[in-house]
């Protein structure tokens, strides 16, 4: 683990008196390597390490008796500062319906997460409507309908010949008719470099004006997290991130990159394939996981 690595890095110099600038540099390099190995984007690591160095200088770590421990605490605290001090819940609209729009790259878990959110909202007394706005992926609408049935919630779509913007616009009237107070728009996976598809989500967001726009990404995402999230954030007013497949063994450094680049909190984490597997994001636990 990082704390063990740093402990041993600094133990070897303890008998020689105080920590030197060189020791500090080596210790910080260990941290940088650990974050890169955890899939944090290298630009985000650079910025983060500058903050850590500043904090270390400010706290006069060079004069400390336990520099290794102190640095680990600094890194941990800086991670918490970056990720948010506590869990940020889902925003509800002042006046129904609350509209949640799910966006992201292909295969990250949007449709499954839409179902999970619907189930969670139903359990907390809401009446969600799942909207199938993916007219491209083979059997995407059927997938959403099966998920809706499994969650015991309503679903709506207009088939694969409809325009996703129209589907999302019509969802409002549909929700009102059925007495649903939350609308979850499941959009198609798309590349941030596909201008036509990015224009489609821009149009949906502009015309529907969602309460939440959640960027869904897989916890195993590597350096590309920054490119995709930045582009989505430029095109859409993202309000939150969902990190899926946290039940795997990926270190999840993408979480840091996504929060840094979008300025949004991670609201939920997916922890399995079943519809119950959606947990609140806890910055403290994530910091421990990333530091190993």
């Amino acid at each position: 683990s990082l704390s063990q690595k740093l402990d041993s890095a600094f133990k070897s110099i303890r008998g020689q008196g105080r920590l030197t600038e060189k020791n500090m540099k080596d210790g910080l390099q260990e941290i940088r390597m650990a974050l890169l190995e955890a899939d944090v984007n290298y630009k985000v690591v650079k910025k983060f390490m500058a903050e850590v160095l500043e904090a270390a200088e400010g706290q006069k770590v060079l004069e400390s008796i336990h520099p290794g421990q102190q640095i680990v605490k600094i890194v941990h605290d800086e991670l918490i500062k970056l990720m948010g001090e506590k869990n940020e819940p889902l925003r509800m609209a002042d006046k129904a319906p609350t509209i949640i729009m799910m966006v992201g790259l292909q295969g990250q878990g949007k449709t499954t997460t839409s179902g999970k959110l619907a189930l969670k909202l139903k359990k907390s007394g809401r009446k969600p409507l799942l909207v199938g706005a993916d007219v491209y992926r083979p059997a995407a609408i059927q997938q959403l309908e099966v998920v809706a049935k499994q969650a015991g919630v309503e679903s709506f779509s207009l088939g694969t010949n409809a325009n996703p913007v129209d589907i999302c616009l019509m969802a409002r009237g549909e929700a009102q008719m059925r007495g649903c107070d939350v609308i979850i728009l499941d959009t198609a996976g798309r590349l941030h470099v596909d201008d036509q598809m990015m224009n489609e989500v821009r149009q949906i967001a502009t015309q529907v004006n969602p309460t939440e726009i959640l960027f869904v990404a897989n916890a195993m995402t590597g350096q590309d997290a920054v490119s995709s999230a930045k582009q989505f954030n430029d095109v859409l007013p993202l309000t939150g991130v969902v990190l899926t497949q946290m039940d795997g063994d990926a270190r999840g450094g993408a979480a840091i990159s996504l929060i840094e680049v979008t300025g949004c909190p991670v609201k939920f984490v997916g922890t399995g394939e079943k519809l119950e597997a959606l947990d609140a994001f806890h910055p403290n636990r994530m910091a421990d996981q990333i530091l190993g």
Partner: protein
Amino acid sequence: KIVTGRSIDDAMFDDLEETLIASDMGVETTLSIVDELRDRVKSDKLKNAEDLYGALKDALRKRLAEGDHTINWTSNNGPHITLIAGVNGSGKTTTTGKLAAKLAGENRKVLLGAADTFRAAAVEQLMIWSDRAKVDIIKHGEGADPASVAFDATDAALARNVDNLLIDTAGRLHTKVNLMEELKKIQRVVQKRHPGAPHEVLLVLDATTGQNGLVQARQFTEALHVTGIILTKLDGTAKGGMAFAIQQQLGISIKYIGVGEGIDDLQPFDPDEFVDALFE
């Protein structure tokens, strides 16, 4: 970033290191490549950016060259059988459809096995691909035992004298012991029905995956003996740099790359193009 004529200095090595890290090559592989380059700069007395760039591409190509990036799709003993596996959402079902179309286009008789009996509308999704590729499909009802679908598909492939059988499986995390056991059972059942099969076990890996890609390759090959990798979503901005560690540490080569969501968006792996693309 590689400005022509610029002479080699530490800043250039830093830029280079960042480019390799940004491509998901990982810390270990990146440091080993950079060390190799520093040695070459000394031994060959390299002078400027172009020299370094050339040496870098050589070092990267060399690491991929030891792999075999082709698949022999013909079995000399009945149907050639391929198992498609990988973690959730990596592109298995779509890739199965693309492979089916490619093989059918070579006038082969192709059969699909819909062994994902778990995920919502998984069978329906593969059925649409079988329609698009104009090939037959073996499927059971929802919740059926995946191994029995695999068995029936193998059985049908033999009975119908099929050239190629492609079996699509459910996405699963390598950390789930029971799901990995299920995958091993699928392989065993196919092997039992047709000794020598499956001839190919392809791990479908999403190019946006970071260092976990190496872990996935290691775990899946431990369970099934993976014979090749298909790296998908390279039409995005992710570079798929973990391919180098997978080749070097596990000896597993990339066979094809996915470059889109359409039926023709599958290309044979070209190491030179892959290396060039890292710097675009």
